[in-house]
């Protein structure tokens, strides 16, 4: 019983990391695809301003989830960390480079270095969700043995795992674009709203297609799980699909107030949550599919589980309202545009308290930036194409 509760807590933590932290990684995708410096100026500025005050707090969900996992289900944790060491190392590299690149870009003034930091941020934002996706895909397909003693390449390079890696990237991009539509709307920026609306819809279609492809592939790779996804977890799967369609429809029809954009955000996050919980419900009570390891028999001693439930309750009481405060302040734009640090971004002419001279200086001069930025974009596209091709090659 306690193990089931902690399993639920773990799933809730994963949901929050996906819905909050995932969007921060997705923002990196749009930063990467924003194009040349001149064209990418405005979206990059919005991205930067939107995730600056919140990404670290969102990132903590990952650490929290890891801690819950290893405390509550230590054997399964050790098995996962051993079998899937390589993708986890790569996801970790993405985390380090993303965070450092993002923080450094803000403070660097020299163009070339700033581009390097920005590219680091953007590329590594793809790595983490992709490899996390392969990790989940490997677990789902039962590629993690209970008594793992060595890493396995085959475990996370199965078609299902690779597809789920791509699905994670696209889902992050989808969430980020939907959130950014709201951010643009809040700033009254029509152009950016249209820009991200288009991307959110495109990402929704890609993510939807990849979801269906993953589901179809699961039918081959793990028929038992597929049966339960289309069985007892079917309501959640349907909710996920409906949420995705609703977001696309609402984005297409939407030209009204900011309340509508919060609604769209909530629906988008709900869709992702439905996927995560659909996975959880389908797999319950098994912890590592393909093995006899369940929540109950892999669980830590009772006192530890109770302590974890207490920790989570404390987190809900202390951290919940703090997050609410942070997001509220962020949505009222009380944070950033700061004294320092924030890429002042949204500082478009005529909309801020910046002295005109500074505004003038902020306009990029086209001659200086075209070349390298174009090269960066081309390089980015090639890398993405390479990433997308991986499954076919294997």
């Amino acid at each position: 019983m306690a193990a089931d509760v902690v399993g639920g807590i773990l799933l809730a933590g994963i949901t929050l990391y996906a819905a909050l932290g995932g969007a921060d990684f997705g923002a990196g995708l749009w930063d990467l695809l924003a194009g040349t410096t001149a064209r990418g100026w405005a979206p990059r500025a919005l991205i930067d301003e939107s995730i600056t005050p919140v990404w670290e707090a969102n990132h903590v969900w990952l650490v929290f989830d890891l801690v819950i996992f290893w405390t509550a289900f230590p054997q399964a944790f050790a098995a996962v960390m051993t079998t899937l060491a390589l993708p986890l190392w790569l996801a970790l590299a993405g985390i380090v480079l993303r965070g450092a690149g993002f923080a450094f870009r803000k403070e660097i003034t020299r163009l070339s270095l700033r581009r390097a930091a920005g590219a680091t941020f953007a590329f590594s934002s793809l790595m983490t969700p992709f490899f996390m996706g392969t990790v989940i895909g490997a677990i789902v397909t039962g590629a993690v043995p209970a008594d793992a003693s060595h890493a396995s390449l085959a475990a996370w390079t199965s078609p299902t795992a690779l597809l789920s890696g791509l699905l994670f990237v696209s889902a992050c991009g989808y969430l980020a674009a939907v959130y950014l539509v709201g951010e643009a709307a809040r700033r009254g920026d029509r152009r950016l709203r249209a820009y991200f609306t288009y991307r959110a819809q495109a990402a929704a279609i890609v993510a939807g297609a990849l979801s269906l492809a993953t589901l179809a592939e699961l039918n081959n790779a793990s028929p038992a799980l597929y049966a339960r996804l289309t069985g007892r977890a079917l309501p959640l799967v349907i909710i996920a699909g409906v949420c995705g369609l609703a977001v696309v429809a609402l984005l297409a029809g939407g030209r009204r107030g900011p309340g509508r954009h919060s609604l769209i955000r909530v629906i988008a996050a709900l869709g992702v949550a439905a996927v995560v919980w659909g996975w959880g419900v389908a797999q319950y009570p098994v912890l590592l599919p393909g093995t006899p390891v369940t929540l109950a028999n892999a669980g830590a001693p009772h006192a530890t589980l109770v302590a974890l439930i207490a920790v989570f309750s404390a987190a809900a009481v202390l951290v919940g309202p703090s997050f609410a405060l942070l997001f509220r302040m962020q949505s009222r734009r009380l944070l950033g545009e700061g004294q320092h640090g924030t890429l002042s971004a949204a500082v478009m002419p005529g909309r801020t308290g910046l002295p005109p001279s500074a505004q003038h200086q902020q306009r990029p001069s086209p001659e200086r930036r075209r070349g390298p930025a174009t090269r960066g974009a081309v390089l980015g596209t090639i890398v993405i194409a390479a990433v997308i091709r991986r499954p076919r090659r294997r």
Partner: protein
Amino acid sequence: MTHASPAVLLAAARVSREVVPARAQMATTLGFHIILACLGIALPTVVLLAEFIGLRRRDATALLLAQRWSQAMGVLIAVGAVTGTVLSFEMGLLWPGLMRRYGAVLGFPFGVEGVFFFLEAIFAGIYLWGWRRLAGWAHWWSGVPIALSGIFGAMSVIAVNSWMNQPGGFTQRGGRIVSVNPAQVYFNRAAIYEMPHMILAAYMVTGFLVAGVYAAGILRGRRDRYHYTGFAFGFVPAAVLTPFQIFVGDTAARAIAHGQPVKFAAMEYVPRTSRHVPEWLGGVYVNGHVYGGVKVPGLDSLLVGFGPGTKVIGWDTVPPAYRPPVVWLIHLCFDVMVALAFLLLLAGLWALHAWWRHRRLPPQRAFWWAGAVSGVAAVVAMECGWVVTEVGRQPWVVYRLQTTAAAATTNGGVITSLSVVIVVYAALGTATIAILRMLSRRWRRGDPDEAAVPYGPNPAPRDLAAGEVGR
């Protein structure tokens, strides 16, 4: 967890290959992160102190310092957050054996730490990016949770480390943990001295590092109120805490002599259990001889039990396989840590004396040189302390219960990840320092040139006075 003996033997053989690189990687990543962790724990307090005085006395210099430090803090917290995540992953990636066996025990303090990590990150988001729109005191209060959660978060992480030194609070049967007492795990026997020792160390490292930056500026002739104020905000808290740290450290050493006698024997070169044990200052122990050290007869016994006849346990009480490797490294690190603490204490006393006699800081260049290197000295002392406690516990990862070799991953290729880590961390460290220096140069120039950078939009550094008016 496995039963077949050939498999166990095979696993053991593979383990021994990976344990050395795994330890090296853990040491590299922890040694790097711990500096940022110190800054994460204590820098918010120093910044809040400056902002408090700035608001209270309407002191524009103090406010300016607080603003600039919080910009630096933004970078440091970001790098600290990601390098801390590396350690979380490494718990499983490098030490699956430890987690498999004891994850259920040592996980609880980490869970508590998670809550404080949340609070720290959330309020850092508010404090760091709220300078412009939050009114003076509201902004100050938004920083208080960062400082508090830094302290409690550090306590929780140290609870895990001290538990590894003095494990307790659980029962195991047949290699499985059957019951856990989370409170006893958290407040284990070593926590009582390790927690204050590390938190004081964090404050000393941060204070002396901040002081060092401004002392270096003063040495270069920047003798203005800005630099003296910046120096004082770092130096005074750190120097005040130094005697307390020496007291806590002395208490800790005595507790180690009782609780972890083999580690203590390595720290003090006590090969055989005996009375009237001499204290070695420096010196390298090789094959039963100490080369180049100063021997003070009976002092070690005196320090351990307040009498020269006190019996001190030597490392002969355990078989050679259970003794820590490289005793000389442990001893020298211990001596360096203690010596540096006393030198830092002297610097503080020097400043105190000058203030008492002349109501000013010492004018001698030697004092400012001491101030300039005090930050590095504090970092070295802290790293040495970690070497003592970690290498001194070897070959155990959980003292007397699990060897480090049994905890290490059975996956090959740790050498590869170690190499990558060294390269990435070298770049990360260099970039962090370069960016802090760049910020400092930019502040000194006070020019808004960076606004012209076109890759992405950029902070327009406000006119420094404008920030004050805004408040």
